[in-house]
């Protein structure tokens, strides 16, 4: 008798448990939403304009990356890693190569290490430039900053094409070194791009950093505290923007990063603006590393002569190789059982783990801010879904 009057039967499916006062609205953002950077969906529950609940739904781009790798040879896995985070394929190659090198105890020649640093830092430059452009696009600055960023990114991609043959799916590194040596004139072209990049950054920062609209939209939005960042295990620019001093280039000193002097910029507030600024500052530090690497690049072989690329069978064991990718800590965990393909192959994707804080960042914010918060996380769905 009293059932009907006290608890009304909810005929509309939805977040009924959260219905506190007034009408809540459930919005499904994505998967075909232009601002979700791929096929990503957020089930957002709104109270007016404010977000009260957000549930990320992903997996639309799942393509069995880890299982496919278990059926491939160690060499055959390499081109698949390009397709994880398709913006920065070279750093993906690097992390995988590092894991295999740890597994089999391979020494990488000096020149190859330098080439890895050069291509890896160029990747960071073009990733950050592209990300900041996309972030502005998400914010409603249609086109202009994105076009400027892409103009610069294009120069780096041209360098990649001249070196590796492909603009995005580079497939450049091999366990034991790099696939090809630099062609004639490449270093001069690269030097030109690197020398021209600070000018672009100055212009870009003139355009954006002190822009009042940008500040109003981003400052105090999507705050991640230091404790939250550490507890959630996020890494990369996201964590550093919250003031966590954690950069694998300094912590692990993988490769030959201990030879370079560079600073690790840290944020203070952990909001979207800090994440934007941090990337701008990181690009400047990458240029410093690139200048040093270009200056010191030695001559010599680029492949370890004892490493067999085809029919590669490391002895049984396990290894975890990790690098500071442009998006955060990218790790590959490999178990070998002595056969030609990995027994277990696991990727630690920085985008996915950085995305775990999405709801915490978005709660209490406006709907329009979800888009820029998501944009500032820097996700690539190829890596989130694998």
């Amino acid at each position, binding site marked *: 008798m009293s059932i009907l009057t006290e608890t009304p039967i909810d005929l509309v499916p939805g977040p009924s448990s959260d219905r506190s006062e007034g009408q809540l609205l459930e919005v499904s953002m994505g998967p075909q939403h232009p601002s979700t950077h791929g096929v990503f969906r957020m089930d957002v529950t709104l109270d007016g304009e404010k977000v009260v609940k957000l549930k990320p739904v992903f997996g639309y781009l799942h393509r069995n990356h880890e299982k496919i790798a278990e059926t*491939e*040879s160690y*060499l*055959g*896995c*390499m*081109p*698949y890693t*390009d*397709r994880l985070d398709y913006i920065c394929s070279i750093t993906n190659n690097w992390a995988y190569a590092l894991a295999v090198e740890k597994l089999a105890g391979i020494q990488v020649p000096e020149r190859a290490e330098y080439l890895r640093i050069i291509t890896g830092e160029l990747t960071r430059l073009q990733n950050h430039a592209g990300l900041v452009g996309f972030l502005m696009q998400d914010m409603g600055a249609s086109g*202009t900053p994105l076009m*400027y960023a892409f*103009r610069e990114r*294009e120069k780096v991609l*041209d360098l990649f*094409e*001249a*070196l*590796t*043959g*492909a603009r995005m*799916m580079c*497939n450049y590194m091999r366990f034991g070194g790099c*696939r*090809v040596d630099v*062609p*004639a004139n490449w270093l001069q072209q690269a030097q030109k791009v690197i020398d*021209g990049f600070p000018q672009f950054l100055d*212009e870009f920062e*003139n*355009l*954006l*950093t*002190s*822009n*009042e*609209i*940008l*500040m109003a939209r981003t400052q105090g939005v999507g705050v991640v505290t230091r404790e939250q960042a550490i507890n959630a295990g996020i890494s990369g620019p996201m964590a550093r923007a919250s003031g966590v001093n954690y950069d694998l280039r300094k912590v692990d000193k993988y490769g030959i990063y201990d030879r370079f002097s560079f600073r690790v910029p840290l944020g203070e507030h952990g909001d979207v603006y800090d994440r934007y600024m941090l990337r701008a500052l990181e690009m400047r530090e990458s240029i410093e590393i690139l200048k040093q690497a270009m200056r010191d690049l030695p001559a010599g072989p680029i492949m370890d002569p004892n490493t067999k*690329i*085809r029919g590669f069978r490391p002895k049984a064991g396990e290894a975890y190789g990790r690098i500071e990718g442009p998006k955060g800590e990218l790790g590959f965990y490999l178990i070998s059982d002595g056969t030609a393909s990995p027994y277990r192959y696991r990727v630690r994707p920085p985008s996915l783990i950085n995305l775990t804080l999405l709801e915490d960042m978005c709660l209490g914010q406006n709907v329009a801010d979800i888009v820029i918060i998501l944009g500032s996380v820097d996700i690539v769905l190829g890596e989130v879904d694998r």
Partner: protein
Amino acid sequence: MLGEGILKGLTETARNFLGSYVSKDRLTTIQFPEERLPQIEATRDFPFLVYDGTEWEAGLRCVSCQICEKECPPKCIYIEKSKDKKPDATGKLQFYPTTFNIDISVCMSCQICVEVCPFDAIKMNVEFEMSSEDRFGGLLLRKEQLAKSNEYYNKIHPTEATAVDAALAEERAKAEAKARQTTEAKAATPAPMATPEAGETK
């Protein structure tokens, strides 16, 4: 002052807009189908098979060892090996592929086939306008579509092709020198044997 940052930004856009009339660095776009950028030498997209000489079927370098088929990560290569042997461009008896198909709708242009080929028979092409109305047949390239001459290879990847040609020439010279040695040795000790070419060419 409020608005100062926006004005500062607008000077940048103005600089880029006006600069696009005078500076090549600021105007980087081209009108694509009419204008084209020069091809970058290392560019790759899909594989093709190299043949020496003028006859594609006779000069095909592929000896049907099927290494590329095994190593191809997405398994887009399909080869059927011949039962008989026939002389390749240098006159040496080799197997040849009776079928060599590459499904370029599956191919991911990783060039691992090129890396593992011990005969320099498969190389990467630069042709990208390959759209087809037939999703299955039109994107399945057969042996005759894949075969491209060594001159073509030299044209699209000059540096790489010159190195490959030099290496092959050296190898052939070595093989010839060895063959001459054995024939000389044979001449010293006469052995009445029919040449194998005569027996097996059909």
